[in-house]
């Protein structure tokens, strides 16, 4: 069930009315949210529901045992069971074929031809997201940061909460779980802000991301016949496609949560206005970045220790982040590239610069442009199907084939046609900087209606696309 589908519109309308007008007790509302979440997920493939239910039950009971145990050894054992079971499932579904194929290729280089069997399975939607969410709960209980819940329904609802189940934000139990115990009263203002977030998210997805996708899909598949400008535009369009797609999803998720009275964690804060790569990572996919920081980077030592250890920790974190996105060398390379971008500011102790609000002075804008350019360069690796394609793509850019830069593409559009729309989007983003959405503030009704109109006029409805992050 896609957020940008009629089915979801009908679904959320029914859920909203039943949740607020037919069910009065918190317990009943939680059961209803759980059932709605299972229906939402089962709409894709009901067979994978058992994975979520298994993961839910496992972490619910293991966390209780961790809490009850007096011996450290026992606590550790339960934690390891959780880690192995959750990450094991993730490994089998997401990484097994990648490792098998990579081993075969590696041995083929030295003339040994292994015949390892691969699994003919599809990746369950959102497995990386809910696995990390349940793991964070168990680890927090192990670290005595959280008392385990005795309410299985509340816990299951926390794990499967449908607005953020398949593509985040990756919630922390400390934020979301207590909201399943509280008595809820309907707040019109809160729900209104939710609707505004949904509208803004739909604009990002249907107008920006899906329009860019038309060009990106074509340019990346036909890169060998494109000129340099088209290829540069392909990378820029992808930057906006992935941002519009993922942050659009997040906005709709957070907005949907608000319709039901839940406050989810923020995930994006106008990342393309970042002034260095460290700031970019504080503004992009925040829930994943903070997850890695809290559960991997800091336990590894973080920025403590000598420079060598710091470098190691940075590389580990970025490589894992890359690998989290998908079982492909392109994602690993993308992660490594971001580590390389990050290192200079870390060595110069400037990685914590720009934690303040965004300002648009001349020098700041120049830094934003530079950060955006290197980010786009890294996105080429993220988008390409293989490393050889990514390098081929970059090689063709630096061939400087600049004769007739404005080109009519086989998709019946000029290569530069998206530029006005992207500028319009950046203007909207600029007006919404340091705010939750550009629709807030003065004339919010007028702005919301205008965006609805723009969605109707400029939206891509004929070629409805899945959200990119569903595959992760």
């Amino acid at each position, binding site marked *: 069930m896609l957020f940008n589908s009629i089915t979801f519109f009908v679904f959320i309308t029914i859920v909203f009315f039943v949740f607020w007008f037919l069910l009065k007790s918190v317990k009943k509302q939680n059961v209803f949210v759980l059932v709605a979440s299972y229906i939402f997920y089962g709409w894709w493939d009901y067979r994978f529901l058992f994975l979520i239910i298994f993961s839910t039950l496992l972490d619910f009971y293991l966390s209780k045992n961790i809490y009850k145990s007096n011996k450290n050894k026992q606590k550790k054992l339960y934690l390891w069971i959780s880690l192995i079971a959750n990450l094991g499932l993730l490994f089998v579904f997401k990484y097994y074929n990648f490792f098998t194929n990579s081993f075969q290729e590696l041995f083929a280089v030295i003339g040994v031809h292994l015949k390892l069997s691969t699994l003919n399975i599809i990746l369950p939607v959102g497995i990386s997201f809910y696995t990390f969410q349940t793991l964070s709960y168990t680890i927090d209980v192990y670290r005595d940061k959280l008392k385990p819940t005795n309410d299985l329904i509340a816990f299951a609802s926390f794990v499967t909460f449908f607005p953020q189940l398949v593509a985040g934000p990756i919630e922390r139990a400390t934020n979301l779980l207590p909201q399943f115990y509280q008595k809820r009263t309907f707040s019109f203002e809160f729900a209104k802000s939710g609707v505004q977030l949904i509208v803004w998210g739909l604009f990002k997805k249907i107008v920006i991301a899906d329009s860019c996708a*038309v060009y990106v899909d074509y340019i990346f598949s036909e890169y*060998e*016949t494109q000129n340099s400008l088209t290829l540069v535009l392909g990378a820029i369009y992808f930057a906006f496609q992935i941002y519009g797609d993922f942050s659009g999803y997040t906005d709709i998720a957070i907005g949907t949560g608000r319709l039901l009275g839940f406050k989810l964690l923020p995930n994006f804060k106008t990342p393309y206005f970042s002034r260095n790569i460290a700031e970019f990572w504080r503004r992009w996919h925040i829930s994943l970045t903070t997850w890695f920081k809290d559960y991997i980077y800091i336990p590894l030592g973080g920025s403590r220790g000598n420079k060598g250890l710091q470098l190691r920790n940075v590389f580990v974190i970025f490589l894992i982040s890359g690998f989290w996105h998908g079982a492909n060398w392109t994602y690993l390379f993308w992660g490594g590239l971001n580590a390389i971008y990050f290192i200079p500011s870390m060595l110069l102790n400037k990685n914590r610069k720009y934690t303040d609000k965004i300002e648009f002075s001349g020098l700041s804008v120049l830094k934003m442009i530079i950060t955006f350019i290197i980010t786009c360069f890294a996105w080429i690796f993220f988008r390409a199907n293989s490393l050889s394609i990514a390098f081929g793509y970059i090689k063709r850019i630096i061939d400087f084939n600049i004769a007739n830069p404005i080109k*009519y593409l086989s998709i019946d*559009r000029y290569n530069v*046609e998206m530029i006005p729309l992207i500028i319009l989007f950046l203007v909207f983003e600029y007006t919404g900087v340091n705010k939750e959405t550009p629709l807030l503030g003065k004339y919010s009704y007028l702005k919301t209606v205008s965006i*609805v*109109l723009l969605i*109707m*006029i*400029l*939206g*891509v*409805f*004929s*070629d409805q696309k899945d959200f990119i992050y569903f595959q992760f």
Partner: protein
Amino acid sequence: MLIAILLDVVYTSAIEKTIPRNKVRYALSLKNKHYNVLFLGSSRVENSIVTSMFKEQNISILNMGLEGATLGDNYLVLQLLNNNNVTFDQVFIQLDYLYNNNEDSFSETSMSNLMPLIRSKQVTPILREFDKDFNQNYYIPFYRYLTNSYRIGFREFVSSLLHKKPRISFEDGFTPKFGTTKLAKEELPKNIVSYSKVYNKINNTCLSMGIEPVYFIAPYCSKMVDNGFVRKLDSVVDNFYDYSGVVKNDNNFYNCGHLNNNGAQEFTEVIITDFFKNKKR
């Protein structure tokens, strides 16, 4: 809802009043005309039949090859022309793996191009018969523009408003391709359907127009794997001509299924020689 109604009216009037911006609309606009030759098919006709070479021989021609066309699209164009009393001496129809496509429907492109005219007398019965979402498209304002936004959305609306000419002249109908890209292997199906519904409809329409159509398979590059399909096609289709291997030089292909400009000229010359100089028929 008010916005949707308003947008529907504005879009429809802009698109209705503009010059035809696609071949389907062009076919609709032609009335009471006569051409010597009509070519129907996919982009393998659009990119392959050089109309100017026919005109040099004083043969009037309409190249109605449509990119991504199915047999259903060819049938649609033929019907529209027939309904508008556009007549021909000869009709050439490209047939290949599309023969196996038994779906009695048009491609998305043709369907989209007809959508703005859903309420016109000419188009309503056609869409009522073939469009699965006819009721939504007909009764919900602006719905058809949303669901077909790629082809008849805002971009098309602005182009229509500005009376922007299409990139290709439909009077010519030929769109050349230039250069050669990677020639990947193309494979024809191993099996042929026992009965092709749309082929039979096309055949019957041509016969009702008093024309015995010529069916042909357009050229493929040397990497094409035939799988015996052409022979099977020849055995089930009357008046069939195999031109799949007529262009020998792979440099005359844009890709394996499409000729470039040089290849198109070579192929057109063969057709003109066979049918108009040597009067093969």
